[in-house]
């Protein structure tokens, strides 16, 4: 079982690769809309990537209003 820290780290690495940003440039507290400069459609694509990676389902309502990696990691963690 992953710890929350591990989950967070994996999400940050996944987002780094998916959106092709410099390694180590993303932090847990970052607002991913602003930091990555993505729109709502791109954020939805990221969620699908996370689901495949962690082999979980993230219902829309779980991520409604979530905009930072830390909260996202908590929502993922609760479904592992």
């Amino acid at each position, binding site marked *: 079982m992953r710890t929350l820290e591990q989950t967070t780290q994996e999400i940050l690495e996944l987002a780094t690769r998916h*959106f092709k*940003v410099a390694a180590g440039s993303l932090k847990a507290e970052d607002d991913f*809309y*602003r*930091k*990555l*400069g993505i*729109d*709502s*459609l791109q954020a*939805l*694509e990221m*969620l*699908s990537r996370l689901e495949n990676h962690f082999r979980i*389902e993230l*219902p*829309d*309502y*779980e991520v*409604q*209003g979530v905009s930072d990696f830390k909260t996202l990691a908590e929502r993922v963690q609760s479904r592992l």
Partner: protein
Amino acid sequence: MLDLTKYSSLGEAIREALETWPKEVCLYESDRGEEKQRLTYTDFKERALPLAKWLQETGFAAGDRVSIIMTNQSKWLISAYAIFYCGGTLIPLDYKLKPEEQWKLLKHSGATFLITEYPIWRQLSASAGRAEADKVKTALVTEAPANVELAGATRWEAARGNGQPEFIPRKREDLACIVYSSGTGGTPKGCMMTHENYLEQCVALTSWYPFWPGVKYLSILPTNHAIDFMVGFIGPFTCGAAVVHLRTLRPEYVREAFPQYEITYVSLVPLVLKNLQKGLQARFDELPAGKRRAFELLRKINVALTKSRPRLRLSRLLLKQVHQAFGGKIETIIVGGAFTEPQTLQFFYDLGIPVANGYGLTEAGTAVTVNDLKPFRADTVGKPLPGMEVRILNPSADGVGQVAVRSRTVMAGYLDEPELTAETIVDGWLMTGDMGRFDPSGHLQLFGRKKNMIVTEEGKNVYAEDIEQAFEGLPVKEYCVFAANYVWPSQSMVGEKLVLVIHLDRGQTYTEELRKEIATRNSRLMNYKRIHGVVLYEEDFPLTASLKIIRLSLANRLRKLPREAAILPV
């Protein structure tokens, strides 16, 4: 479809529909490609009436206000019908708003009942805003897990009364809904919509874009939004058609839904339509040279054959693969909520997929003008729908003036805002605040909002949104054109200038190359339409729930920048 002139309320019309098409499917609900629910009109009735009975047993009276805050799903429509059956007024609220904002609107609306989903209720019940909306006495919550504490709410699934509820008739002029338009003007306003407004709008719209039993409408825009409420509920339900709801709204599931359900109609906002265009174009570009040439040839043939009117069957044969990706049955994509660039509309039409773009506002009962496809015109927002009187007030020499609308679909007014209502509806005419003109063939063309404009020294009126099209496809994250005096108010009537505000992509810098690109495009504009400078803005533009730029709010933010230093020369 039903003859809606016979009915005096939405409840009465839908009640008749449930008896007219008992075996037709009215709702499909799918999650991640898997169908979870399929309801006939009879199933729908059997779910709605016990809820109506429960509401009546709980003391619900005619005219009581009930808010629905839900994502798009069957229980949204079932609840709405139960409310109309009991003679209630519906307050559809945006589920994407923050809980504090939702409570604020609940309080403003005077709602005494609330129907919502568990995940939304979890946030609402924990919000400090709840204390203020103390008129909301009863909350019904759908899909709550078995053992959770509901903070004073009742389970929707348990809210079932026994026996036949009493149908409460309403008059045409009674309030059906209070709709908070997301609008781009700042503070939300509660538009009071009557049963007549909706019934008339439905007649007008379906006369051009009909529904019939077997039609499947894919509901993606939030149902609280005026467009989806009309074309994803009232329209299909009064014609025996069906609505498809997706519980997980991700691009991949939306794509799958088209072939899975052989969708007939879908409504989209321009951003999504444009995204779809990008995706399709990328796929065309990847085709091997030979196939690409063959495809381009077929597209050209389609363009030639559909010049005067759409020919769906022919287009489906010619461009089979494209149409199959959309399920092969698509009739029209409805686009609304914001201005759509003509180039995007043309892209789809050239593929044999008509896009019904139009112009409307919540205050006017959704659509005012719609493209009638006779022939398709990408450069206008269409002609007035039947029953719509549209006038251009105080037109300038080139025919442009404020668009005013008179129709039985125009709202009764803004809730508790008599002064604002009097300013907005003058002698029965709705002042839209939008500038437009009619072309010789009776199509409406829009030229921006009333105030974000400049008047040149030659007396030419130039509208910021009009200029934005010249920068379409600019390689930046987002951009917007403002009249500098609109952002930084000035007492002067001379020397007005336009500025291009750009928000760069992550990691992008304002390079000389980008500056040149802007300068080149700018130089192609008539001299009086050219932008004077560029403003770099580092944050996301504020957007409404329907993804329109909130210009007023963005202008307020920009105002904090020093005017002279902020405007870079092009």
